[in-house]
């Protein structure tokens, strides 16, 4: 069974978290993500969950890391300035393999920038912002429906891979209201429990260690220092460090094809748009208006790890067009994977690309 709602994107995100069984929210409200925290504050305690408004975003993510280690499905929500503050603990979550969900409703940056305007300027920061080598997962909703669905998915991926998962929304989708079909139940992928007698950071074939269940007799040391399979610091052992960090990266990057989430439209086309988040909507409008099978579209729902295999699905492609509400962050990533021309269509200032913006770029590259 389903029901129909007319929800704001941020409301749909919070409802997705509740449907996924999120039972801990810690964070600090910031425009344009505030409605996520407001909705969780109103709903979560009534369902037996915990909502804590922390003193800042640093404490917000620290609280969800702690909650996750007690077994909670934990989430925070923020925007760019808050994501910047969270960076140290995002690395800590990656190093300690803590499943948690961070909602980032992007606004114009750098710094305080444009609190009420839309942007996608944090796409590289979210991948590489904390020190050292690590990997994360990032999802990008383009509809209010996907604010719900991808939040659910974020929790499942976080638990499956024991990694921070980011919903990289933008102000456009976070603040608009539209139709949402809400299912009665959602899929739930639980953490793989640690087998008794196994070391807590000894990974299985999938490169993911089992999770020690709180209160089930495990004694686990959790540290951001380079640690051995027992969890004890081993920060001067070069080989151990190399193996650990390589595994943290490989457990995500090696699974990129398994977890890839994208749509391919008109795979035989010669000119191909690639978009994620709000610009997807502009590309869809242009595709509809032009009705030209020689224009293709790769619509990404998962941006990190980047699904490079998707590029190969466009066998006749001669050029890729990348509209982003930043100065070409993912265009640079895409250039890394293909030898064909990559035409960045950057737009900053806070407004979504118009169909005319994209059509004029197509006309300039016939």
């Amino acid at each position, binding site marked *: 069974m389903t029901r129909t709602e007319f929800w704001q994107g941020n409301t749909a995100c919070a409802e997705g978290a509740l449907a996924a069984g999120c039972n801990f929210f810690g964070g600090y409200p910031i425009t344009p993500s505030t409605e996520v925290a407001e909705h969780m504050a109103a709903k979560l305690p009534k369902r037996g969950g915990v909502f804590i408004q922390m003193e800042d975003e640093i404490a917000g993510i620290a609280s969800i890391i702690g909650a996750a280690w007690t077994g909670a499905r934990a989430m925070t929500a923020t925007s760019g300035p808050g994501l910047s503050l969270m960076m140290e603990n995002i690395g800590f979550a990656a190093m300690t393999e803590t499943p948690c969900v961070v909602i980032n409703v992007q606004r114009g940056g750098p710094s305080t920038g444009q609190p009420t305007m839309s942007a996608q300027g944090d796409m590289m920061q979210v991948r590489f912002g904390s020190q050292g080598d690590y990997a994360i997962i990032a999802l990008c909703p383009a509809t209010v429906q996907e604010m719900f669905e991808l939040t659910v998915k974020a929790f499942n991926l976080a638990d499956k891979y024991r990694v921070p998962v980011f919903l990289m929304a933008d*102000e456009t989708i976070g*603040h608009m209201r*539209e139709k949402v079909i809400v299912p009665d139940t959602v899929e739930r992928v639980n953490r793989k429990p640690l087998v008794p007698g196994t070391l807590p950071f000894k990974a299985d074939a999938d490169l993911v260690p089992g999770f020690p269940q709180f209160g089930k007799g495990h004694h686990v040391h959790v540290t951001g220092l380079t640690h051995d399979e027992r969890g004890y610091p081993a920060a001067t052992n070069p080989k151990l460090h190399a193996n650990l960090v390589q595994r943290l990266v490989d457990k995500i990057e090696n699974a990129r094809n398994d977890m890839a989430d994208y749509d391919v439209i008109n795979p035989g086309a010669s000119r191909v748009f690639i978009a994620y988040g709000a610009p997807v*909507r502009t590309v869809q409008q242009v595709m509809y208006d032009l009705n030209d099978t020689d224009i293709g579209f790769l619509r990404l729902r998962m941006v990190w790890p980047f699904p490079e295999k998707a590029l190969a699905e466009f066998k006749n492609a001669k050029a890729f067009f990348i509209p982003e509400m930043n100065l070409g962050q993912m265009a640079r990533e895409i250039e890394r994977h293909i030898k064909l021309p990559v035409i960045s269509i950057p737009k900053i200032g806070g407004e979504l690309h118009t169909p005319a913006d994209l059509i004029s770029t197509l006309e300039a590259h016939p």
Partner: protein
Amino acid sequence: MRNEVRFSGFGGQGIILSAVIVGRAAVIYDNKYAVQTQVYGPEARGGASMSQVIIDDDPILYPKVATPDIYLIMSQEGFEKYGAVAEDPSVMLIDSTLVHSRPKCRCIEIPATREAKLTLKKDIVANIVMLGALVAATHVVSEESLRKAILDSVPKGTEDLNLKAMQLGLQLGKQP
């Protein structure tokens, strides 16, 4: 069939709520698609507030309004900032109690704030009077759907007052 409706007035009149009610009526009760957006800047706190709704029989791709075909304007500042650009063949409903200018396009004058105050003794429901008039004049959503969406959205205990305001608006909007 697609309509793009722009609402503007001053903060506190219920401009945003009006747009949400129309979107909700379209999506939940008329089984159509709608996207509602609004201006979030600091000017929305006391200055001219603005919200837009797209209503379509088919899924809405590009979510931003380019050229509204219907305007609902409830303050002079809102007119100057968000209504003055209107041209034919758009239609504009104005609260003639509060808006002194008139647009270049077809204009339907609804003395919503005056009528709400005189007839219902509550000018706070002027926005609901305007919604009734909007639906009578443009049929952007059905009357029954508007009624249900209003009941979903207004505080408990104010249902009768708001339904009377809607009825008043329906009458005012039907006048030639």
